[in-house]
């Protein structure tokens, strides 16, 4: 019996500690610090720079693999009426979001800029209409619609009529740039 106790405790302890070392904990900070949105130069007027061309800063969206943030983004997607134009990702007046074509770029900071700045021909600007961190959540969710988010964090199906494959079941698209449609070019 003594050996049993010892061994069981040890075994479970080792397995536990091993797993803890292996995986990182799923953090659900409700008051998280988000990447700084000011460093995003959304509209590049010119690529011509003084001296060496500086690399544009890459911004890591820490919400990319956070299940809670993704589902909050999903709620915002319908609450902020993105559904109105983009439907549930299939696209309507607005372009589809679950395919592999990206007009204004598929990187988090690009999507962030698209939401905050708005885009010509219909995409409204949400500047000051959403706190930055919610925009980041929205960004993470938008990327998950084309399978860019890890499957184990992406939201599952809704409890309503099925209009699309759930985000955690869509197969990952390879993002590629699409030409800006004529109608959507910024007025000179």
């Amino acid at each position, binding site marked *: 019996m003594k050996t049993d106790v010892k061994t069981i405790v040890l075994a479970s302890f080792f397995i536990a500690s091993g797993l803890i070392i292996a995986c990182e904990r799923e953090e659900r900070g*409700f*008051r998280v610090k988000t990447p700084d949105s000011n460093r995003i130069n959304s509209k590049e007027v010119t690529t011509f720079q003084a001296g060496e061309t500086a690399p544009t800063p890459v911004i890591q969206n820490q919400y990319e693999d956070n299940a809670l943030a993704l589902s*909050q983004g999903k*709620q915002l997607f319908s*609450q*902020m009426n993105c559904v109105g134009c983009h439907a549930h990702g299939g696209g309507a007046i607005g372009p589809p979001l679950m395919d592999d074509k990206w007009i204004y770029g598929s990187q988090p900071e690009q999507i962030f800029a698209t939401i905050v700045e708005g885009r010509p021909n219909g995409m409204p600007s949400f500047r*000051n*209409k*959403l*706190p930055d*961190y*919610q925009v980041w959540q929205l960004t993470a969710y938008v990327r998950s619609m084309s399978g860019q988010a890890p499957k184990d964090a992406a939201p599952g199906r809704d*409890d309503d009529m099925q209009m699309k494959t759930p985000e955690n079941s869509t197969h990952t698209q390879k993002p590629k740039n699409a030409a800006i449609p004529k109608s959507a070019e910024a007025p000179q």
Partner: protein
Amino acid sequence: MKRRQPARGVLFIAAGLVASSCGGRQSAVDAAGIQAERLESLWWIFFWVTAVVYVVVMVLLIVAFFRNKRSNEEERPDTIPDPTRENRATRIVGGAVAITVITLFVLMITSFRAGRAVNSLGEKPPDLSIKVTGHQWWWEVEYQDEGNPSNNVTTANELHVPIGRTVKIMLQSNDVIHSLWMPNLHGKKDLVPIYPTTFYFEADKPGNYWGQCAEFCGYEHAKMRIAITAESPEDFQTWLNAGRRTPPPPSDGTVESRGRDIFLQSVCAQCHTVSGTNAAGRVGPNLTHIAARPYIAAGSLQNTGENLEAWITDPQHIKPGVYMPMNQYSDDDLLALTAYLKSLK
């Protein structure tokens, strides 16, 4: 002996404590309506019957404890007990079982009758019908006016009812299962998604009571409360009429008007409705008459200026996980905003 003490005491503690705890704005044993009274009397019937049963069993054991002879492992076990004693015991046990059956039957009938009485209110048409929708984690309350839908009054986390009137509550939920429980007025009823339900109740003691969500519904299940005010039909009517008025827009140049502009131009209007303005969000509670409400954040804070500021800037500290986002405002913006909200009488 010591060991028995609590067991014996349990009943008296029970009587004492339950009696002492009679009272409270959220108590099932302090009825403020006819249904709740029925339920409360039913409770006391059950309480005393079961209490007697408990005492009998315990007393038997205690008597046995004192009268029975002691023995030890060496004692020769009694394998062929004296038949006459056994038969007497058998008869007694049989009698006890019979009594149990009868008691249970009586209790069952009482419970059925109480149940029918509680539901009997639904037979006549209600004087007032209120639609209560459960959200994570707040209550949307809509006073319906069959004649003229434009007279519907939408508020949140507060329920005003006239005393002596039959109130019909229509329950529905759009996310998870909640349960509306107003102990002083009526038993609880679940809000299951696709299963809209109704119940009827009547308050007959004016006062302020609490209702709360009674089915675990996520992070802020604990802070999903609803403040109930039972008042005279006249007061109720004045409150309802006040609810139907759209609040007057603040005059230009005042701090309130600046607050209104902030409200409309920034995050707030995305989720909240203030009738008479462009703010028409349906995500959060309707704020048309927020200044008239005793509490904010589903009954977790008194409706004061500081609390409003605290809630607007850092709701995640007060209700972690709530869907209201954190906001950064400069101090005077915040002041203006709260001033505007306080003006929404």
